[in-house]
């Protein structure tokens, strides 16, 4: 089976998953005993005609499945309107999601920088004090309440040393953003892709050569990234260690040693085989990061997806919730696909 058929088959099996996710989201929202329209409009602006208008618009006078079908068709055609903000749901998501991408990326860099070297060290020096330290580091990381760690990081890096700041997200200049937005018109197709990438503020700034914005972004967001590296780095290190040791114990290593290969060559083989499970875990981790970290975004004051979702849930704003869940489900699916494809690239034994 080729790559194309594999992708097609996966896409087909994922359609029920996406629909199921949307349905469950909707049913949760439907189960709320309160009247969502009142929550949207606010108690003061209780103009009965306006209320009726909104009710009819979102089909609250119809049975629930008609509401659901309405929401999904509007969502898929990109027409769904956020009733609280009175504009298209995606316009808000397109502000929030790039910020989450930045946070996820910086967090991921820390995760890899802390997790993989520690894991490799622990595998090379098995049963030494480094190995023991990695074990304790992993256990402490998974036992620390994240919000307490965030508080103390803020105390150390912001309150005492002022090496970061806790408000706003650095954006490229207006001229740069205009230039990126004009790309799709000048270069069809490829321009769309480039401008989508450029919608992440950090990448956009890099495209225009505004490196101070990139540096500012790192200064603003390295603390949540560091926190993530400290919390999950040990776990990643343990996985790296275990899978490298598994690979080291296999027969081809013995054979390579018997053939008298140099140590470096042997490690290259071990590395290639040992990294396969690591890639799965890292991929899933990155996918999880892309759906936003609610607690980190709350404590570090970041306007990302997690916070948006939380606000929408507490405001019963379920057109927004449905749109965000749709995005999450797609992220989950894409991460899974990418992990599968990476598998096959690293390990030629795996066929689709």
């Amino acid at each position: 089976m080729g790559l194309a058929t594999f992708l097609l088959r996966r896409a087909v099996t994922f359609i029920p998953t996406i629909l199921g996710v949307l349905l469950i989201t909707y049913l949760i929202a439907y189960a709320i005993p309160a009247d969502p329209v009142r929550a949207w409009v606010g108690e003061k602006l209780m103009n009965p005609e306006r209320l009726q208008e909104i009710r009819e618009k979102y089909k609250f006078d119809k049975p629930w499945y008609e509401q659901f079908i309405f929401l999904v068709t509007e969502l898929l055609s990109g027409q769904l309107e956020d009733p609280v903000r009175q504009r298209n749901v995606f316009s808000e998501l397109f502000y929030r999601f790039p910020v989450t991408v930045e946070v996820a990326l910086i967090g991921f860099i820390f995760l890899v920088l802390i997790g993989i070297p520690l894991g490799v060290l622990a595998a090379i020096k098995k049963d030494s004090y480094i190995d023991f330290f990695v074990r304790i580091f992993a256990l402490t990381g998974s036992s620390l309440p994240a919000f307490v760690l965030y508080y103390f990081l803020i105390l150390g890096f912001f309150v005492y040393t002022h090496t970061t700041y806790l408000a706003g997200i650095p954006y490229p200049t207006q001229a740069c953003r205009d230039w990126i937005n004009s790309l799709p018109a000048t270069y069809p197709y490829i321009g769309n892709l480039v401008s989508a990438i450029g919608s992440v503020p950090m990448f956009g700034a890099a495209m225009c050569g505004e490196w101070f914005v990139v540096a500012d972004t790192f200064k603003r967001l390295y603390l949540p990234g560091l926190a993530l590296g400290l919390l999950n780095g040990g776990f990643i290190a343990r996985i790296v260690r275990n899978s490298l040791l598994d690979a080291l114990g296999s027969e081809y290593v013995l054979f390579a040693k018997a053939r008298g290969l140099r140590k470096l060559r042997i490690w290259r083989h071990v590395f290639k085989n040992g990294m396969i499970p690591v890639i799965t875990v890292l991929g899933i981790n990155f996918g999880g990061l892309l759906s936003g970290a609610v607690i980190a975004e709350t404590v570090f004051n970041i306007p990302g997806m997690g916070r948006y979702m939380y606000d929408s849930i507490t405001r019963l704003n379920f057109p927004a919730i449905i749109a965000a869940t749709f995005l999450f489900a797609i992220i989950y699916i894409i991460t899974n696909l990418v992990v599968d494809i990476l598998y096959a690239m690293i390990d030629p034994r795996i066929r689709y």
Partner: protein
Amino acid sequence: MKVVYEVLVKIVNSYAWVRDKISPGWSTRNSSRIKEWKLMAYAFSKSKIGVLGGIIVFVVTLLAIIGPLLAWEPYWEYRVVENPELWYRPPCMPPWCSGYPVFGTDEWGRDIVSLSLYGFRISFVISLFVVLLGAPLGILLGLVAGYKGGLIDEVIMRLTDIFIAFPGLILAIAFASVLPQRIRSFLEVNTPIRDLLSLIFGLRPEEYAQLAALISVWIAMVIVWWPGYARIVRGSVLSVREQPFIEAAKLVGLSTRKILTKHILPNVLSPILVMMTFDLATATLFAAALSFLGLGPQEPVPELGYLISKAGGFFPERTMHIVLYFGIILLVIALGWNLLGDALRDVLDPRTRRSIEFKEGE
């Protein structure tokens, strides 16, 4: 660590004794199993971090059971009303405390040590309930899906996929914000259930609104928790299902239920036990995180995550002691379970256990 080994062997022996009383001859029929357990006890007693974890878990469990009875200040009494000096009082050294609490007080003037005794119970009960309900649900679905295969498998696994595709915390937030009102009206009517649950959580029955929030956190977490178990159990069942002994059991004519519970389940159980131990740590932190976001119980219930989030406003000037104290408590509870799980993983896996057993002989 010889003491630990002896205690564990005593527990195994007394269990065998009880089984013998129920059905005579049980210990002779299961002598190999008892021997295996004793070997596990030996391997466990060799692991220092495992023993440490076991001790922490034992103490935490004990505190959770007797904590609310020991607490010397009722959590619903706001002492700050009588004495404004008690507002966020920092810790002090014992001889110079002049009657104020040694570890300091929170914003209502309550002694934080006394408060934490209630907090232990709440955190412990929530994490235990989540794992004890979520794991069997996932195991059952995973067993059925893996063993039956075909359409049933497909339906269950698609459902699992749907739940895994959600970010767990977000799904839990959604459920935890939807459920309380319904549970509250349920508790209003069913007073016996309300009283029982209040007793279990160590709260007053009057606080059933907060109890409803706690229970909705619990249910929300169960909904998030089962898919992980279903997936792992299904995977293990798929590999066990093809083994000859299952075929033999089928040929003998055992019912599906018997094959699942007597032959497949014991073979997939040990990784699940390890996962449950780790999950008790995760569930403790997860519940605290939900309360931290404001979805759990509110005043005056002393949920650890909620207490920390309240203290966040005046951090670090007035509330360093609160964040530090409750943070360390959460860390210790989770660390205990994690250490225990880490050791159990080595002990329950026959391959690593052999290497521990034979180390002595070298």
